[in-house]
């Protein structure tokens, strides 16, 4: 039987939450094709991650281990997965479209003389053929892409394309098999140093359930405080579009968009954000979008579930009060 392998992502032994979305995608494709769904985690001493993943509806979970897989390097990861796939062939290999995956998957696919369909937002299964949907021309168009190679087809999914909370739990824990791979001397050429942040209070917006985001409509730096109060009332994180961070009103690590973070929270509340494509690609995977903007033609409204056309300075103060009331 054909196999679908989901390679989950871990950092320092902790599962990256976006991996659940990829498993959801894998479960959906497996249900339609009847193929076997397996998962793998790659690293050093990451059995706990494999165990966590094994709670989901999967036929098997592999814990691919080598001391040379920590810290991450593209050389070691590509080498380990190439060796693994040589022994455990898969028809489809699914991963989240993270910076790390972008860094090693094209190398791995090339080493296997196959291709990676990158930044995919959906799929269709028609007449026994899988088509993957990916954005092109900065999201102005989407393309249905088919795979014409003979090796495994790698597919990387854009953040927010599938829902992490839709991942199905297994009736019983999936079996976990540890696979020790050999990464010989000389394979790893890069020497990565410690990961660091440039700003002190850096925040990982991708992990936030609620985000209040401000755009040019906030007008002045001192008005950021109002958005902050709204975020606090909701128990969410504060974010911004690029111009706000370029102005230095909020640190760069709070920027959402193509040059900032890509987020998919339960709620994305956009204050005074017009919705340029560079911003939309970073947040359109949000489960729900509420937009408040003066301009009724603002593109942000096209992807909003709830829209308020009006002056944010009139609406946000009573909104904060109502939220506090509702929360008791």
């Amino acid at each position: 039987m054909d196999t679908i392998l989901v390679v989950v992502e871990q950092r320092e032994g902790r599962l990256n939450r976006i991996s659940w979305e990829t498993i959801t995608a894998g479960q959906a494709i497996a249900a339609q094709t009847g193929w076997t769904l397996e998962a793998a985690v790659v690293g050093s001493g990451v059995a706990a991650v494999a165990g966590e993943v094994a709670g989901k509806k999967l036929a098997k979970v592999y814990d691919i281990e080598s001391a040379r897989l920590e810290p991450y390097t593209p050389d070691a990861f590509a080498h380990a997965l190439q060796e693994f796939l040589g022994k455990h062939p898969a028809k489809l290999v699914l991963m989240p479209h993270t910076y790390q995956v972008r860094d090693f998957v094209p190398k791995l696919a090339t080493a296997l003389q196959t291709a990676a369909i990158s930044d995919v937002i959906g799929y269709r299964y028609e007449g026994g053929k899988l088509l993957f949907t990916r954005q092109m021309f900065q999201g102005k168009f989407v393309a249905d892409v088919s795979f014409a190679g003979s090796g495994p087809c790698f597919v990387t999914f854009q953040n927010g394309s599938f829902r992490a909370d839709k991942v199905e739990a297994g009736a019983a824990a999936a079996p976990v098999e540890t696979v020790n791979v050999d990464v010989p001397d000389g394979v790893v050429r890069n020497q990565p140093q410690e990961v660091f942040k440039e700003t002190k209070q850096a925040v990982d917006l991708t992990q936030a359930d609620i985000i209040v985001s401000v755009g040019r409509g906030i007008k002045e730096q001192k008005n950021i405080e109002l958005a902050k109060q709204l975020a606090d009332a909701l128990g969410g994180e504060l974010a911004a579009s690029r111009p706000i961070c370029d102005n230095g009103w909020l640190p760069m690590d709070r920027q959402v968009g193509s040059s900032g973070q890509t987020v998919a929270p339960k709620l994305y509340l956009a204050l005074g954000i017009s919705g340029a494509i560079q911003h939309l690609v970073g947040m359109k995977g949000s489960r729900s979008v509420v937009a408040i903007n003066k301009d009724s033609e603002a593109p942000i409204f096209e992807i909003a579930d709830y829209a308020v056309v009006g002056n944010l300075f009139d609406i946000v103060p009573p909104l904060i009060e109502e939220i506090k009331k509702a929360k008791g």
Partner: protein
Amino acid sequence: MRILVCMKQVPQKDAPLKLNEAGTWIREDVSYEVNEPDAFALEEALRQKEKHTGEVVVVTAGPARASQVLREALAKGADRAIHLEGDAFVGLDAYNTARAIAAVIKDEKFDLIFTGLQSDDYGYAQTGVILAEILGLPHATIIMQIGKTDGGIRVKRELEAGFFQFVDMPLPAVLTIQSGINKLRYATLIGIKQAKMKPMCKVTMAEVQSAVGGNLQKIEKLYVPQKSKNTEFLEGPPAEVAKKLVEKLKNELRVI
């Protein structure tokens, strides 16, 4: 330092794009410009050359119009250009584009090869990494800083969520460059004049055909994305809108 910069011509950011009749590609009658991160990659190459001396070579794959990107690069200070010229290059996937470029430059012994981190048209974000693998070179992606060390280079990689990481690596190497790594220069009048004297080598598809295969990923159809959301507009005076919105946040979206 001998540096190759891979560049691409893409539709202008704000150009209104239309689909062709077959729904397989855009209509080509739009304005084009250099892919933004590629411009930063060129700038970085010029700066490295100014610091360490050497040569900057620019390469592109695309139809005749794409030579504009190379001419601009020569005017800014690149020493020579290679144009894999022809409409046939437009439809290549990332693997084949990299194979075609590799076939042309593999004997050139560059110390560094730069690409932009991704293109505005296909957006594969793969060609540079694939090129590294074909050439057997180490690579690093989304680079924000490059410094020379005794044994090679130290680069600063951008990671997600505001994280960065320095990576030491040997030369030769392939780097994909992030927008904003430096400040772009303008071409000077004298630069534009000198560019006309600089060599531009043209390569046809026939010359690299043996290195290129069929696309492994095929665009079946290109179309305008469907609007998936039914937007509900909440109206009324601010206090009333606030009440309505909180009701939605609580009962519909369940985030309160």
